[in-house]
Every structure is written in C-alpha cells, then in structure tokens.
C-alpha cells in the first residue's frame, strides 16, 4: 500500500521536471560530428579522396563494402565502382578507422529509412560528396611517393628531388 503511494508521488513530482523529449521530426536533435550515421566518400581539392585500397572493405565486420580499383593514365588510383549495402551496415565506423585517406566518413545523418531494402544499396555516385567532410586538409597523394598527374617524383611532401643514379659525385 505504502509503496504504491510512494510510486504515485514520484511520478507526480516528475511533472515539474525539465522536459527532455525532442519533438522529432519537427524538431531536429543536435548530433555530434563524430556521430556514426550515413557513410559518405569525400573529396579533397575537387578530387576523389578514395584511393581504392580495400582497407575499409576488409575492416568491415559485415562485409558490406565492395569496390574495384582502377587507375587513370597518370597512375592515380581510384575506385571504378564503390558499393555499400546499408541494409547490412551496422554503423560501427571501422571503415572510417581503417581508411588511410579520410575518404570514407560516417556522418550525423541517420534518416535513411526505406520501404524497399534494395534501395539501401548505395553506389559511388550516391556516396560521393563535394567536400572534405570532417577532415579538411589531408591529401593522401601529396604525402605518398607515387607520381600522379600534376605531381611528379620528388614533388611530394618532404621529398628530395629524384636521384640521378649515374652521378659519381657524393
């Protein structure tokens, strides 16, 4: 008897507390940038950041990422196609952790509901965004030793000019 009255009393007191319910969807909650929602592929200086290294794919515990690498004539590697099956994705963020180029990022967007599961299969066109996403400034090809269009050997960050192997001078 006493415990029932006590319970009613506590419920009654709650009427005077601050409200925490968010009126979604009219009202959008704040989600931190690190929130793990819809996955995107970013760009840097207008170029695709993804170098098709397959690390995100191998890191993915549910194996929902598949891609195929290709190269342009200058030797720059990028994905020919890139597919994420969001109907399998568990938004663990391992792909983002694994990505050496900051290309793949999880975003604070979770509004991906679909009536047809098939629509949850995203291709590269659906994933690519225009900007660098959360991480500005890092351009993998500037740091890598590979020569690509517009960056010759020795023009990367912290690189000495290519050696002339025929010289005998010290």
């Amino acid at each position, binding site marked *: 008897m006493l415990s029932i009255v006590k319970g009613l009393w506590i419920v009654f007191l709650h009427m005077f507390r601050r409200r925490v319910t968010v009126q979604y969807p009219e009202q959008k909650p704040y989600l931190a940038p690190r929130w793990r929602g819809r996955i995107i592929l970013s760009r840097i200086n207008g170029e695709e950041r993804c*170098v*098709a*290294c*397959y*690390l995100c*794919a*191998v890191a*993915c515990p*549910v*194996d*929902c*990422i*598949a*891609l*195929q*690498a*290709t*190269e342009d004539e200058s030797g720059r*590697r990028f994905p020919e196609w890139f*597919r*994420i*099956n969001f*109907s*399998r994705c568990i938004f663990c963020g391992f792909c983002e952790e694994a990505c*050496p*180029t900051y290309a793949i990022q999880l975003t604070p967007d979770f509004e991906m509901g679909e009536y047809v*599961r*098939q629509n*949850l*299969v995203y*291709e590269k066109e659906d994933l690519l965004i225009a900007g660098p996403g959360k991480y500005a400034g890092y351009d*993998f090809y500037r*740091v*890598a*030793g*590979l*020569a690509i269009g517009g960056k010759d*050997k*020795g023009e*990367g960050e*912290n*690189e*000495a*000019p*290519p*050696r002339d*192997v*025929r010289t*005998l001078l*010290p």
Partner: protein
Amino acid sequence: MAKIIVNEREYEVRDGQNMLQAALSVGLDLPYFCWHPAMGSIGACRQCAVRLFRDANDTRGKLAMACMTPANDGTRISIDDAEARDFRASVIEWLMASHPHDCPVCDEGGECHLQDMTVMTGHNYRRYSGRKRTFRNQDLGPLVNHEMNRCIQCYRCVRFYRDYADGRDFDVFGIRNQVYYGRQFDGVLESEFSGNLVEICPTGVFTDKTLKGHYTRKWDLQTAPSVCVHCGVGCNTIPGERYGALRRIYNRYNGEVNGYFICDRGRFGYEFVNGARRLHHARVRTERGAEAAPADSDEALRLAATLLGKAKRVIGIGSPRASLEANFALRTLVGEGNFYAGVSEKEWRLARLALDIMQGSPAKAASLADVARADAALVRGEDVTQTAPMLALALRQSVRQAPLRKAAKLRIPDWDAAGVRNAVQEEKGPLYIASTFGTRLDDAAKRTYRAPPDDIARLGFAVAHALDASSPPVPVLPANARPLVGEIVDALTGAEEPVVLSGGCGSEAVLRAAANVAMALCRKGHPARLCLTAPECNSTGLALLGGEGLEPAFGAVTSGEADAVIILENDLYRRAGAAAVDAFLEEVGSVVVIDHTDGETAARAGVVLPAATFAESDGVFVNNEGRAQRFYSVMTPRGDVRESWRWLRDLALAAGRADVEAWATVEDVDRALAAAMPIFAPLPEIAPPAGFRIAGQRIARQPGRYSGRTAITANVSVHETPPPEDTDSPLVFSMEGYQGQPPSALIPRFWAPGWNSVQALNKFQEEIGGPLRGGDPGRRLVEPAEDAAADYFADVPRHGEPSAGNYLFVPAHHIFGSEELSALAPGIARLAPRPYAGLSPDDARGASLAEANEVEVSVGGWSGRLPVRIIDTLPPGMVALPVGFAGRGPLELPAWGELRNPRDGRGQAQ
C-alpha cells in the same frame, strides 16, 4: 642431425643449414630480408640479428646474423634477447627512413614482407623527419611494374635475376644511399623468368603489371591449387579470382617440380580465361552454311545428341590441353576404337615414342628438381627456354652443382652465396647443348653443337656407342661433332648424377639417341636420369590414354566410315594443314566442338558447347615426367559453361548410355579411368577425396579476411545467394571453411599468422627448401621397367639423306607466342614476335637478302611470304620458322622446302 639451442630450448635440425633456416624450420619467427631459401645468404640486410653464445656457459654472447651462422651441433642463440630485438627494430627503422607512404596504393600491400617484418619487429612510428630520397621508375615492359621508391636494398632481385636466372640486362647501379635496381635504360626485361621478381622482391618495387589492370588484394582473391597449362612441365600454381574474373597467377611451391619459381608464360598467360574469345554460351547451326546462332544448353545438347544419334559412326578427337577426365569421357562416349588424339601425326609419334622410352629405359625420368640437382647435363633438340622454360632454369642451376661440390670440399656451406661465388668464380659445370641453332641457354653451356636434327641424333648415337660398345655405331660422324663425343662421355661418366634431356625438335631419331645415351650410362653403372619434354600440359596423359593420331581420324572420314565428330578442346587448324582440316570438316557430316575458346574449328562446327578452362574445372594433368597432378577449380563458370567431361557425360546420357549414369563427380570419372586402365590405378589416391574434411570443415578457397560478401552482388539483389556447391573437391567457394594448413595437394594459398606474404611458405614445408608437409603433391605414373631389358635403338639416321628442297625447315619455338592459350593474353601477345623466316647470314648473303626482306616460302603444303630474320647461329642450309603463330606456317617440321627471293626469282641451292 645437429642439436641447436634457441631461446634456451633445444631443437634437432638437419646438418648443413644456417641458423636462420634452422630456426624457421622448427617453426620460430625471425625477421629477414636478403636471405632466400633458393639463393642462400649474403648477410646484407642485417635484419636477422640474434645473440650468439660461444657455449652453454657464455652469458654475454655477441650479436650475429643468424643467416650467416652455421647451425652446428651445440650452437646456442637467443632470438628474444633485448639487444638483438632493439637492433632488429633499428634496422627496420633505417630501412623505413626513406620508405614512401605508399601502402594504400601499393600492390604489395596485404602481402608485403616488409609490412610483416615491420610489424614483427614492433617499429610503428616514424621518427626521421628529413626529406625522403626518391627515384624515377623504369618501364620494364608489359609484365612487370617498377616503383623504385619502395626499395630496401636487400639485393634479392639482382641475385635472382643475375645469379640465379643468369639474366644480363638488369643490375644494381649507383652508390651509397642511392643504389638503384633496374636496367641501364627503360625496356622490356629480357629474362623469361622476370615475373619471379614479383614474388622475390620483399617490397612493392616489382609487382605484377597484368594484375594492376584489375587490381585485387591477396585477401580478396579466391584461390585454389592449380597446375600451369602452358607447357608440359606442369608447374604448380595458385590462380586467384575476384568478381568472376581470373586476376593473377602465383607460384605454388612443389619441392619436386617447380620449387619457388615459375616462368613468365605460366605467370602471365592466364588472361585467356577472361578473354574476348571465351565461349560462354552454346551455339548451334541448324543447317549447313547457315549462320550459327546462340542456343541454351538443353537445346544445344538435344541437337548434338540428334546429330550424333543419326550418324553411322562417331569419332572423337581428344586434346593434349584437356584434362585426363575430359579425354577419357570422350573415349568412353565414342568408344576406344573411335578415339583419336588431337595432335599432328609427327607429334603423336614423338609422344608415343617418348612414353615407350620412359617405360622401357632403365633410366628414371627426371623431375624438375632432379634436373636442378644434376651435375652434368646433355641437352638435345630444341631450345628448352622456349618450350619448357622452367627446365631451362633448372639446367642453369645444374651447372652450379659441380662447382658447388668443389666449394663443399673447401668447407664452404652451400647457403653461403658470396663464399661459394668467391670460391668458384665463373666456373661452370658440364652442360652440353646440341640444337638446330642457338638457344637462350647457350651462355650456360660448356659447349654447343649446332646441326640439323639428323646430325644431332648421330652425335647422340655416337656418344652412346662410346659409352657402351654394344649400342649401334655411327658410320660417318660430321667432323665438327667428333671431338665432342669424347668430351661429353667424360663429363657424363665423371658426374654423380648425370641427366640426359631431350626435346625431340620434331625428330624421332633425336629422342632415340637420347634414350640410347641414358641407357648406356645406366648399363655402365652411371645412374643417369632421362628428361623428355612434352609439348603441352597433358601431352603425356593423352599418350597414356592411347589411340591414334589425327591422320587416321581424317582417314576414317575420307573413307566414308565416319560421319560425325566430337572435337574436344582443340583447334584443328593448329594441328594440321588448313587444306586438310577444311576438307575434313567439309566431308564429315556433323561436327560438335567442346571448347572454352572460340577458334576456326569452332566457327565451322554444327554445335559448339562452351567448356570450362583449367580455372573453372577439376581434373588431372600428366606432365612430361609422367607425374599426375590434380588441379582444382578456382571459380565457378559464367554463363552455360560446363566442364568438358560433364558435357560428354550429358551427351552419353542423352544417347541412353548406362555406363556413365554413375558419373556425378570428377572422382567417379577418375575411378572409372582407374578401373579401365591399370596405369591410372593410382589416380583416385593422388589427392584427398571430395569427402575429406578437417574438423568437419571443407578447405576454404577464400581467405578469412575475404571482403565484400554482402555487397558484391547487392546491386542485383540484397538477398545473398548461398555459395555455389562443389561436389568435386573438398574445397569450398567460401571463407567459411578450414583456414589452417591442409594436406599439401589442397593448399589454396600460402598464409600463416604474421606472415601475409609468400614467405609464409616457410611454415608449410617440412624443412626450409624441402618437401611440403606430408610430402609434395602429385604421383608419378610412369616408372621404368623393372627388368629394363629393352634393346638399344638401332636406327641411326644415315649420312647425307637426300634433300627434297633447297632448305631444311626447322621449328623455332618462342616462349611468348608459340603456345596457343598464353598467346591470347594481351601482355604476352605484345612480346610475341611476328612470323618470320630465319636464315643464316651466309644463306641470306647468297640469296642477296637482308633483314626484313620478304621471301617466298613453300614447305609441307604451305606457301606464303615471310619477312627474313637473320639468325647468326643458324647453320647454312636451314630455315627456322616460328611455331604456332595463329595457324600460320606449316606444321610438321623439320621438313624440306623451298625458299626463294621473290625479287630475283631464283632460289639459292645448297
């Protein structure tokens, strides 16, 4: 056996190893770079440092390189020693100072020995902040990619290319911290074994350029044990598949066959599997002369069955590039008397003769490893670098055996590569080559002899006679051969393990002479081995199945007896003259072709059934040594493709044949074959049966890290399909299966925890460089007769055979281009020479011809114009014609023919 102590634990190891080898052999991990089991140690990279103690009481010890420390009885080292660990970590850090930040875009990534060793030593953060040294790359041709920035200066590449494969166009250049590994100038690597750089190089400097076109990481490749289909040596391979296409071929170690290496034809010839000429659907022609139209399998089968059912007599033409099972299924369907081997008459006679020799000679057949171990060799006939490339690489090792024995007398262990080199300098063991003209192996030979095939044969008969007077004498020997006889006899009798190798060069006499030499050696107490090359991957298997050649098959049709033919994986236009094949296909009423690649024969067929290549089927090939080796499907076929034996079984079932009803899997065919022919009795035992399981699991074709399985086909449907069933083998097309070490015949890839690169192989061997655990796979079917009472061959070719033309035309084989399937791979096709007529400089001058001038050639019923190529090593009176260039050129060489300079209209008579 020696007792060694590592980390205060005792181990028993074989004598004569170094401590690195010994430690790896007993399953310990120790980082290394420059040491390679096939090439020994040079102590260059300092990565294998350990603490070496003087004796059991020594507590201080000193740092030493394990790879340069002999594993003597009582040698005590510590791998775990703190200072040794620090030292190894610093070595990696130095190597990494200029290493580019390339892993994500590096084709080596995921199977990189440098990555593995970096992780093993624990170096994980860059401290060096200076500028990185960079290099420019070279274009090394269509097969091997060069990315010099990634080099760690371990010298493995030069040691393989120059010291092991005797290549001359690749070296190390420069000084101090700018040493450069490459060619003097950009250009195609000349060595036929350049592809091995991909596996030898512990970093991503050398990678597979053909893989780059459809790049896939090792962890994403679906792999299975396979056997190379591009020549008769039968090297073991690991093909890798992704998204339904074959992506690359890697070597699969087999201590008795190819060891650590394969040739470039074998490595880069795979692209025919993905080629535009692949057949994926059946094709039928309902009426003669009508357009062939695509059809579904049932319709095509029905039509084929009707055609065959209507026929009076159906003959079957087998193939040396189809599996034993496929050939046997065809033989079963058409009946033994109607089965013909699908090779030219000359090739068939040679193949049967080779088999007779192997079965009748007291000399054992030599495996590839036996050839490499031989300390004297006589090579006769063709240019083995072009026809059986890995045999040439083995021969290059054999010339090191005699000097190595000398070094052993100086107590220099064989693994001490620099020591051995210093001791023996440029010395070479005895290798004698008798060929029609210069070969790519001549630089390794002590002496060469160039002459027409009959003279090569006579030289052999003379050597045999000098060895054993009861073998037939040679009345007239060419003057230039006489001094050679004694020398060869001395070399062969002075050797402990001599080997006689013969390629036939299209001449039976050459084979017979080789057989006599080997027999004479054996009779005189020198246990020689005999190695006869085979032209294609299953030529020996086909010869074992028996039957007749192609001409009797044509005869059966011309005589009106047979009016239907089933042609199995064979383009007849490569086997006989175009006119003869045209006539044959015209005359025979119904033609059913089962093949994986479209060709001229398929284009003329009534029904074409799409067959599986080696990559999509299971079966057995028998290599030149008589070794039956099982290969497994790497991928499931696309379209309506089926294994040839399955098509043939279905045809037999459609004809109401009861004897094939039980043929559900490839093993049933093997059992039937074993029961039908006693020589194949071991077939069911050469590999574990399909029911074989480890801990209840099948062997996984996909590595444990295989990615993307819920996304690969998601664009088609999000509902994943179960993995395809495999009833033929204990392997499974999935990552769900056994990932550890299976029996040696089933090894789908070399991988071990911490060892992602090919170096993981160390963990699969009983002892480094020795057999795989549980014994090397494959079983030799052909053994020499016990009593070996066979007689010497007596038919020595006579001197001065009459000539039937002004020139003797001899075949010129090319590693790139002469073999049908590899020639369809774009990379190989780029390296294949254009057809030509090879002339000696004297003859060219006599006929006032210069390089690239056109000549008129007519030989063996074929005539046409070809550009001249002047071959300095060709003796006068002979013309060399390249073999197998897309049905061009006559097929039965050597033969007499005419060559004329069209400009002056006169031939130059000899």
